[in-house]
């Protein structure tokens, strides 16, 4: 019986996933096609690789956020953690490339700590995650400001920036291959495995669906909750390391990224309040948002109007998802 059930569930999950993924992927491909029509070099391998490189930080944040969202929570602290990573990286390395490797290690430890705090506050103090991570957002931002004195300048050492900036040339087929895409691919593989291929992943879904039922079924809700926040925080540090390679050091690198990451997941069909979502959807959502921003830049829209467009697409995506759930039940 268990086998039969499993097959049915697999079958359903497959059609379900296929239907849901298609929406975000289709929209992304549509956007990308329009981008390609406006600026043909986006259709060449090098253009596509560069697009993926720029989308990588948001996609990584979305992959981390996905775990928290599926478990039924929010992580609003990732944007400030990105800022802290870039600012902290610059303070720790102090322009000496020799410091890069241990600095990155320290940054991951900081991320681990922030994730542990978020998770412990939500799991044991039972504080709603939206408030708990709002608190850490404020605090982490404050730490970044204190550490840097408020107005850091300059750039990270070259070997630190390598992750976001370095590009392999003369690669067959794709011509160029940015390191950022390698990082993104590794994160995707880990996240896909963690969420869709392990018992832990199933527990995360179970908690998001019905935490009480999961607990009664023997899931350790507390430790699983802590784990999802740690995953999200580590993803944020990774995204921060990439973003440090993209531009200079400033205290607003990460501003608003938490909402963009949540938006990316939502566009990709991840359900807020938990229980539903796929990695493919989250990544497709991040690519869709990045394509939207690229498209609007090409069309010469002012920065503020991009926010407006993001708001519109967010509402449409969720209204569409809700409409389809009502129809299909």
């Amino acid at each position, binding site marked *: 019986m268990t086998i039969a059930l499993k097959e049915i569930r697999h079958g359903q999950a497959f059609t379900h996933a296929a239907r849901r993924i298609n929406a975000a992927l289709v929209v992304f491909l549509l956007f990308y096609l329009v981008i390609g029509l406006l600026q043909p070099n986006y259709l060449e391998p090098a253009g596509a690789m560069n697009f993926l490189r720029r989308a990588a930080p948001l996609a990584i944040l979305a992959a981390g956020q996905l775990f928290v969202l599926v478990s039924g*929570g929010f992580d609003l602290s990732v944007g400030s953690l990105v800022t802290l990573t870039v600012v902290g990286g610059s303070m720790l390395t102090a322009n000496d490339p020799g410091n890069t490797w241990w600095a990155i290690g320290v940054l991951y430890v900081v991320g681990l700590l922030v994730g542990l705090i978020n998770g412990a506050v939500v799991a044991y103090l039972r504080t709603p995650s*939206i408030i708990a991570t*709002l608190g850490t957002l404020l605090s982490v931002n404050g730490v970044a400001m204190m550490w840097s004195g408020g107005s850091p300048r300059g750039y990270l050492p070259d070997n630190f920036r390598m992750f976001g900036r370095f590009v392999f040339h003369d690669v067959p087929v794709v011509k160029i291959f940015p390191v950022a895409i390698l990082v993104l691919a590794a994160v995707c593989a880990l996240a896909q495995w963690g969420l869709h291929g392990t018992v832990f992943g199933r527990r995360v879904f179970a908690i998001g669906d019905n935490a009480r039922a999961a607990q009664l079924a023997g899931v350790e809700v507390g430790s699983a909750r802590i784990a999802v926040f740690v995953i999200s925080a580590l993803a944020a540090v990774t995204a921060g390391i990439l973003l440090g390679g993209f531009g200079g050091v400033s205290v607003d690198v990460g501003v608003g990224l938490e909402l963009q990451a949540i938006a990316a997941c939502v566009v990709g069909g991840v359900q807020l309040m938990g229980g539903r979502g796929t990695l493919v959807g989250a990544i497709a959502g991040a690519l869709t948002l990045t394509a939207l921003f690229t498209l609007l830049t090409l069309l010469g829209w002012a920065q503020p109007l991009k926010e407006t467009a993001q708001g519109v697409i967010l509402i449409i995506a969720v209204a569409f998802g809700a409409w389809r759930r009502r129809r299909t039940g």
Partner: protein
Amino acid sequence: MSSAEGVVPAFRMRRAPRAPLLLFLGSLFLYIGVAIATGQTRMLEVEGAVGLLQRTVALGIVAIGQTFVILAGSIDLSVANLISVAAVLASFIMQGRPEMMLTAVVAVLAVSAVVGLINGALVSRLQVSPFIATLGSGLILQGLLSASFTNFAGSVPIEFQAVAYGAFGPLPFSVIGLFVLAILASILLRATKFGAHLYAVGGNAEGARLAGIRTDLVTIGAHVLCSLTAGVSGLYLASRLRSGAPWVGRDGVYDLESIAVVVIGGTLLAGGRGGVWGTLAGVLLFAVLDASFNMLDVSAYPKLVLRGAIVIAAVAVYTFRSRDLAA
């Protein structure tokens, strides 16, 4: 397990009415304690106390509205952006001319009501999760506003500045206004059918629907009220700053702070339980913290760090005993 579940709500219900008072007294003691400890006793005289109260007005008004949506089981992240829209719209229409004051106020309230209507309809009719619906509408508002205005736009006439600077004896109009608004909101919640329905919808939307309540109208009503308070808060800020700029709402972080004070005031984030007085006590706590940090001469950045920790701690005081597993 079942006995524990029976005990928790009863415990909460007994405690709920006292929470605002405790929070209020705690804030008061903190303020007085810090003032005495740092020797700044003039902060305890009328002027200092009035200054403290004045700090609560802008956040207090919008937090009252936020209380309504959170009680209904929704949330509103668009208030900060709507505050900016209201402030800019008001000062842009007035352009320093007193005869345009009424037009500007009506226009601001009308725009606010429409935004609330849209938020409410998205949440209740299209079933968009309130987090996304109001985040989206906030982004739309902010985008349109920042694309149209890049700096302070227009100005408000002296007559309108009375809203923020006028006073009745030692008490500013604005503080009295906030208090009156809180009393009205409290009556609306405690003594009207709408209030009863609001608690019912927030407590159990499906149950309320089955009991014959038009839950969609209740949700829309709560969102319209919330947006209206954001509009009023924007008008107050325009008056206080003498002009409106497209960043006044975001700089005040009114979206997240209003949610935080509502929850600190003992209103359940999931809806259905809480009230306006707790929210006001939460607003007072925030004002007291700001004032205390100033008296203690804490510099800007550690202030941020402490503030985050205090938000978590203040909410955890309510939640850590709960058996609720939701995140």
